[in-house]
């Protein structure tokens, strides 16, 4: 499902004297359906950077990232914006650590939106969204409110619901359990297991060791690189 070939990523900060540093060098791996690759390494090792590159949110300097989309291998490092958006619509889901809230859009709308974008009927989409929110213990009184005022853990669960609802073949998870209590952490572990069982290929970052060990089928060890001049 995912094939990463020899990618390099560096940043150059032009507004800060042009300082430049390398974050990823020669990273390669594959993830098959039903597998969950866990990215391991200290803070600053480039775990989130790699995940963002897999979502085409960050560019890479070199190498290829192939994602299987509609029975075709697409290199997202070279794909046009509209091709990437099509891949995100139906193939790759990304659960970021923080929810980016949109004014006036309710929690339920946030969660149902990707399903509606896939052409799912309105009532079906909202019913599924409600079920998943309930499973994640979001109180019903919050469904119709905009998440901007929610607690960190509530926002994260909205984000998780949005990411898991469409059942994407590829899932990218950046610390989805970071601000959750034990019972919600357990729900997320179950969601990940269900995704694996239906054949999703998952790449995730989990600071919680228990979660990590419960879901990982493989690890990628990452270290912070020496900063280049």
């Amino acid at each position, binding site marked *: 499902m995912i094939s990463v070939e020899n990618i390099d990523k560096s*940043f150059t900060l*032009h*507004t800060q004297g042009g300082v430049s540093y390398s974050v990823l060098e020669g990273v390669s791996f594959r993830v098959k359906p039903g597998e969950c690759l866990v990215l391991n390494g200290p803070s600053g090792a480039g775990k989130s950077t790699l995940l963002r590159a897999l979502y085409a949110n*960050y*560019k890479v300097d070199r190498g290829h990232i192939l994602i299987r989309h509609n029975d075709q291998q697409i290199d997202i490092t070279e794909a046009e914006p509209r091709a*990437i958006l099509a891949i995100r619509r139906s193939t790759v889901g990304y659960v970021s650590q923080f929810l980016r809230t*949109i004014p006036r859009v309710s929690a339920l709308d946030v969660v149902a939106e990707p399903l509606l974008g896939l052409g799912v009927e309105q009532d079906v989409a909202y019913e599924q969204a409600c079920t998943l929110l309930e499973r994640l213990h979001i109180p019903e009184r919050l469904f119709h409110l905009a998440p901007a005022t929610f607690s960190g853990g509530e926002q994260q669960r909205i984000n998780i619901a949005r990411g898991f609802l469409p059942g994407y073949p590829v899932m990218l998870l950046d610390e989805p359990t970071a601000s959750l209590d034990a019972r919600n952490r357990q729900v997320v572990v179950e969601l990940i297991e269900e995704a694996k069982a239906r054949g999703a290929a998952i790449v995730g970052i989990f600071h919680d060791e228990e979660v990590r060990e419960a879901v990982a089928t493989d690890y990628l060890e990452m270290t912070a690189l020496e900063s280049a001049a």
Partner: protein
Amino acid sequence: MSPELDQSQPLLTVNGLSHYYGSQLGCSNVGFDLYPGEVLGIVGESGSGKSTLLKCLSAVLPPSEGEVIYRDRTGLPHDIYQISESARRMLRRTDWGVVEQNPRDGLRLGVSAGANIGERMMAVGARHYGGIRSEAESWLDKVEIDLGRIDDLPTTFSGGMQQRLQIARNLVTRPRLIFMDEPTGGLDVSVQARLLDLLRGLVAELGLSVIIVTHDLAVARLLSHRLMVMQRGQVVESGLTDQVLDDPQHPYTQLLVSSVLLP
């Protein structure tokens, strides 16, 4: 498959577009394709050539160089500065919409809100009064303007209402391509949010292609699929919106992004 449904053909193709005001550069060598349903944001500080470019694209300002090819509903390409003025006027009525930064430039202030919408329908051949009235009502409702205000003059509306009326006036004829220049420009933040929410919904629902000029990166992030960053008349960076904002490559884009709190 009818050409109308063929999403693989660009709606608009722009090649080598430049405009000079005398010896002063407006915009230089701009080229891109816009596909059906795509929203392209053009960002950059004031004076960077955004509005000049938008005028050249929307058949208002003939460019000094380059071409703008528009593909009509039957799939036929037209170079919008080579066709006759009457053909251009027709496309402006049927296929394109322009949402001005200042709603006063995009509305007819001397006639009622309902007439502002109805007039556009009549320009494309609607004649039945009852039909026009009910369509005007349905559009006022869509843009969240109280139906009780249908016979009022737009001059009695707030800025946000005027802007929503301008949007209704533009969309009622079901255009395929909308040009917007700072559509949330002069509005309060809360009014902006409501307008953005409305625009986002309508664009998705109607599958519109949009070219939107804004200096507000949050607006660009919310509405556009792709971004073009302009500096001194040149496109210095372009790509997927979140990629350009989260991993900007060009020094000028980095400066823009780092200058705001939450792009």
